[in-house]
């Protein structure tokens, strides 16, 4: 089948506590051809006074839809770094000093578990939001971040006949509160809310750590991070209590492979304990709170007519 590569992108500017929708026309094929999207890339660019690597992948979150079908779900928007497996910690967040100004760029690429068919004339809706107090800069309320989203795939030939059903990738996330020593997901955070089974590819666990001198990043230190317990809808253990967060979600990929089916209405329940890290050994940062997020990534079949 003769196809043509297509790369679409759009950007918005985000202040803390704000929300912005990407221009839908930027994310549509200009000649209204069907497309098959293989990956979605996110990036954040800003400048501030912080002179070291800072990754705010938890603070900037996205909601994605294809027409009426949600690609993201759950109780909140999905953090940028929770869409998939981490490929390179070194290149996910970079910074440099130039002319006395610090520039930061955080990126994340989500290679979809199955290519997403985007029929002509259907709208790809993408909305980004940024939490308050993400500590991007000392005066972060005035520091705008440019958030960019890109869709990469192929345009299908004219005359391509749409199938009756298609694979829809799906992500939902539990974003823990920013206070307290424990956290518990609710039943719609990581739930299959559809009326058909969903194939779950993996769970992603990210642990944002707010540095006392400003900025945020992942925490990689084994042994001082919170513990996590994961149950299924029947109350059976998927991860038994007292497992260290970075043991469950491998530091290299931040993931836990699942490769199973979540039946309609079923969910995963997350319990986090030890966020305050009172026994930690992180020197001046030892009293900082950690913000865990756990996301669920999979795909399911939907009728094309429901777009």
């Amino acid at each position, binding site marked *: 089948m003769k196809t043509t590569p297509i*790369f679409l992108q759009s950007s918005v500017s985000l202040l803390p506590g704000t929300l912005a929708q990407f221009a839908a026309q930027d994310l549509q094929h200009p000649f209204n051809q069907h497309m098959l999207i293989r990956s979605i890339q996110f990036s954040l660019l800003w400048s501030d006074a912080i002179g070291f690597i800072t990754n705010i992948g938890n603070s900037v979150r996205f909601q994605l839809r294809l027409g009426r079908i949600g690609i993201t779900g759950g109780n909140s928007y999905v953090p940028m770094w929770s869409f998939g497996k981490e490929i390179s910690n070194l290149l996910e967040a970079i910074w*440099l000093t130039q002319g006395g100004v610090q520039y930061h760029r955080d990126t994340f690429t989500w290679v979809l578990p199955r290519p997403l068919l985007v029929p002509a004339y259907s709208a790809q809706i993408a909305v980004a939001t940024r939490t308050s107090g993400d500590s991007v800069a000392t005066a972060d309320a005035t520091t705008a971040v*440019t958030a960019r989203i890109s869709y990469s795939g192929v345009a299908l030939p004219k005359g391509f006949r749409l199938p009756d059903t298609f694979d829809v990738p799906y992500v939902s996330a539990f974003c823990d509160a920013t206070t307290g020593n424990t956290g518990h997901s609710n039943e719609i955070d990581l739930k299959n809310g559809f009326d058909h089974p969903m194939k779950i590819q993996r769970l992603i666990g990210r642990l944002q750590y707010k540095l006392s001198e400003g900025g945020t990043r992942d925490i990689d230190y084994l042994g001082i991070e919170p513990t996590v317990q994961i149950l299924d809808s029947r109350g059976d253990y998927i991860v038994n209590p007292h497992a260290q967060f970075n043991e469950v979600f491998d530091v290299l990929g931040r993931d836990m492979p699942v490769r199973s089916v979540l039946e309609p209405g079923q969910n995963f329940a997350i319990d986090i304990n030890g966020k305050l890290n009172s026994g930690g050994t992180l020197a001046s940062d030892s009293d900082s709170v950690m913000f865990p997020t756990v996301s669920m990534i999979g795909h399911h079949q939907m009728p094309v007519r429901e777009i």
Partner: protein
Amino acid sequence: MAKPAPWDEGPNGLPPVQGEPILLSATGTIAPNTGGAIPTLALANPDKRPMLMDELRFQVALTGLPIGGIIGCELKLGEIPLTGGFVPLWCFGKAENPLQEYFQATGTLDKGVCEYVWRLSRPLFIPGNMALVPKFSSFPYIGKAVSVKVSFVGRQLPPMSTPRIIELPYVAAYTSKQFLLDGSVQTDSSSEDQLLNQFPVPLQIERFVGRYMHLNPSGIGADGSVGLMDEIFDPGVAGVKAGLGIFDTILGVRMTNSLGDPVVRLNTPFRHVFDALTRSWEIPHEMAPLSYYKVYLTTGSPTIAGYSTTQYGIAQVSMVGYREFDTKGAA
């Protein structure tokens, strides 16, 4: 999804996966601003047995810090072109870890080495009576002789006749003009004969590779400095490898196909299209015979502090794929 390699299934008269491992290597010195060949006898099977080549490795070395964008390689299987002219060495395969592509020893040794690997998705069948012949060309940036090493890694097969249909890799590339890093808006575009499928059969394109380097002509000196760096090294502060790729606005890219259809629709940050880790856009698709892609580049702000008007950025974009070749026909 790519179909299974024929070598795994044993069609086309070939045996299933088998063979004895073989690595053939040759080294040469490429004079500045010119071309050169390396001893190709070393790259032919010593027993004239057919081979399946799985990967090519390129190594560039010189005093100072070398870079894959300064040397181009033209590959031919006998007289059959596998490249569209000279392709920069770092534009064949995707990067697996850009931070590990470079090695440098300072002090009395003061030798820099960089290495790039092109892993073929479809092994290349090399008949026993043929050789894969590389030619090299030094692009006119640094005016220094460069040591180049090329290695073919694969398997040698028992004596056999050439299958009727084999799959041949193909790479074509475009190198931009030198963009002045003064924050001004400048443009450049590829020509129709650069990212071209020159064959009357479709090309199965696997990826586009995008590389970017920084040229400081005044940094070329007798002390070994070459004044040319991968974006990842410069101009990050000491100990931080970030580089120009951080700036979404410093280089934008737009692409079309030969019908004018959008490929990269809007002017998009270079490192959005070509991923920062792999330096590539992985996008398997079929490219029509005698069609081409056109790349449009635009530079912009910010002005890079300290670069004044004497330093440059150079982008290189390649397309990498393969085609079916009828060894009894003319295609």
